[in-house]
């Protein structure tokens, strides 16, 4: 029996209006995801497939600029229950001409105010986020400790500075930073990339959020540190049971931590289901994109046979001119003659191909 979902994204569309192209860049184009309490959802895909924008949309951080969001993001805990995208549409006016969008009039201030109102009490407190490039995510001119303490004082009942400091030290040791009592007074430049990421994790977890969004937490770290951070996340997951949305293009990280996996391509989810089904090494019943991604991971077999690694041909989908048919059609190597026409003309929907396992591919539809 599955838990009730903590976060339920329904048909999320995040578009950016490009003035020069007079068109929308459809970064996220109809994504529906669910994260149950205590579960880790891995979101995997190439750069530019809309993973990070999905996360930022959840955080309400697609603020400035010509971003337009529609859809519904339901967020439900014991205490709160809200749609994180409530009323955002009121602040955007679209100018239509002959079915083409000619302009976007966005009330940026009102939009941000609205996002701020809806997200207050959620950002940081209920949903925390870890970013890629941890060194840049910490304020370089103040100590790590003061940043964690600030978050603790803001979001938890601990208001006393000394107690908050003790709490910060506790969390720093929890994320396995050695000598946390010394490190808490370090500036970010004095910490290595891995330690900065640990500090970021400590800062995110210190307010005991219901949901943790980890946006490529291991990117930009070297390989040994990557695996250590992955270990840490796995450990925290088993100890604290944090609900996590893990975004990465590194399938090994995803496979270690995720309970369920969503594979994204060109702003849509192309395959979604339990991790063991999707990341299993067999080719059976898998979206061609997923299998191509899995094949591009170096394995022992590749190394022994001195084979070339298989890269996916072509480029990531141009999200301005989206083709009528399947988004992956141009790069797909498993198109058969019987379905070729369907692939070219019609976009498949996300259909269940085995219990709990959904894919967006004509191969599996009869």
């Amino acid at each position, binding site marked *: 029996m599955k838990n009730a979902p903590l976060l339920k994204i329904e048909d999320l569309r995040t578009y950016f209006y490009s003035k020069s192209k007079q068109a929308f860049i459809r970064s996220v184009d109809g994504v529906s995801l669910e994260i149950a309490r205590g579960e880790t959802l891995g979101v995997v895909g190439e750069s530019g497939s809309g993973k990070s924008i999905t996360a930022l949309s959840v*955080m309400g*951080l697609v603020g*400035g600029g010509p971003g337009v969001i529609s859809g519904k993001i339901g967020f439900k805990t014991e205490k709160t229950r809200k749609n994180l995208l409530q009323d955002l549409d009121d602040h955007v006016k679209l100018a239509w001409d002959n079915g083409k969008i000619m302009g976007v009039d966005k009330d*940026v201030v009102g939009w941000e105010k609205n996002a*701020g109102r809806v*997200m*207050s*009490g*959620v*950002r*940081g*407190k209920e949903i*925390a*986020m870890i*970013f890629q*490039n941890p060194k*840049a*995510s*910490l*304020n*370089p*001119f*103040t*100590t790590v400790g003061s940043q964690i303490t*600030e*978050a603790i004082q*803001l*979001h938890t009942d601990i208001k006393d500075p000394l107690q908050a400091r003790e709490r910060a030290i506790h969390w720093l040791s929890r994320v396995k930073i050695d000598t946390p009592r*010394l490190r808490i*007074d*370090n*500036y970010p*430049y*004095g910490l290595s990339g891995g330690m900065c990421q640990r500090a*970021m994790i400590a*800062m*995110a977890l210190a307010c005991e959020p219901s949901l943790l969004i980890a946006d490529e937490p291991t990117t930009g770290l070297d390989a040994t540190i990557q695996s250590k951070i992955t270990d840490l996340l796995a450990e925290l997951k088993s100890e604290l049971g944090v609900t996590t949305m893990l975004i990465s293009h590194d399938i090994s990280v995803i496979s270690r931590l995720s309970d369920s996996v969503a594979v994204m391509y060109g702003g849509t989810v192309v395959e979604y289901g339990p991790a063991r089904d999707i990341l299993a090494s067999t080719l059976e019943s898998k979206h061609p994109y997923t299998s191509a991604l899995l094949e591009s991971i170096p394995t022992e077999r590749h190394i022994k046979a001195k084979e070339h690694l298989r890269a996916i041909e072509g480029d990531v989908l141009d999200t301005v001119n989206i083709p009528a048919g399947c988004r992956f059609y141009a790069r797909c190597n498993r198109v058969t003659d019987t379905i070729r026409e369907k692939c070219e003309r019609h976009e498949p929907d996300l259909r269940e191909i085995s219990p709990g396992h959904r894919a967006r591919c004509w191969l599996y539809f009869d």
Partner: protein
Amino acid sequence: MKNYTQISGEIGDLSGLPFWKKADAVDIAYVSYGLLIVTLVVVSYILGAFNLLPRDPQDIDLELMMAPPGTVGHLLGTDYMGRDMLSRLIVGIQAYFLPGFLAIAIALTFGTVLGVLAGYRGGRFETAITYFTNLVDSFPRLVLILLVIAAFKPDIYYIMIVVGLTNVPVVASLIKGKIQFLKQKNFIEADMALGLPTRTIILKHILWHNCRSLLIIQATLGMGEAILMETSLSYLGFGVQEPTPSWGNMVQVGANYFMQGKFWPSTAPALAILFTILGFHLLGDGLNNILEGKRNR
């Protein structure tokens, strides 16, 4: 076998030390000199304000015109009307102290507000503010000041308001640039994701933690600039008007006697200007190095 002696105590971690122990000797010297000058300026201001002077600066003594430095009762000599140079130097700071602060306050306040709006908000704000700052920047400052003097009166406060306003674009563009640079690093986004209120992000994380060195430098430069501007205007005869002493008009009047070998009426205020401006600049420089600059080395 060799014996290695164990050095006791912790190694390498400077972060626990108070900041003055981490600083370079040069910076300490800069700041000490700067603080000395600031103290002198403040003391002179107070002395002048409460009229605690060796002599009355307006007291004309026709018996003792152009007395050289060291004359009994006149440590720095007297000027062409026999007025005491030292007293006039001390009172002269009155012309700069409050007006200078006014100029700095105007430049920093408006500059910061506009800079934050342009850098943090971006979009139309940035375009509008850039046009405005370019407009202000394109006016020759001296001409603007002369216009204001012509329209109102040659008052040091009017002059300093103009000096402050014309410094607004400088501060605004510095702050704007800094914020745009900071926005590329994503800790601001991380702060937002943490749910910090915008007020905290701007005031604490951006301005206090990342822009204070910039503001300190601008403040100290601004004081030096205020003094220099008054001096230039005095030389044109538009500064503080005689008989009220200012260092600028003392130099201007004294310069007429320089070629006759009577150097002190102009040299004393000129040196005062030189050392004061130097003091403010070095103070800003040293403070910046001590508080911020060396951190990333």
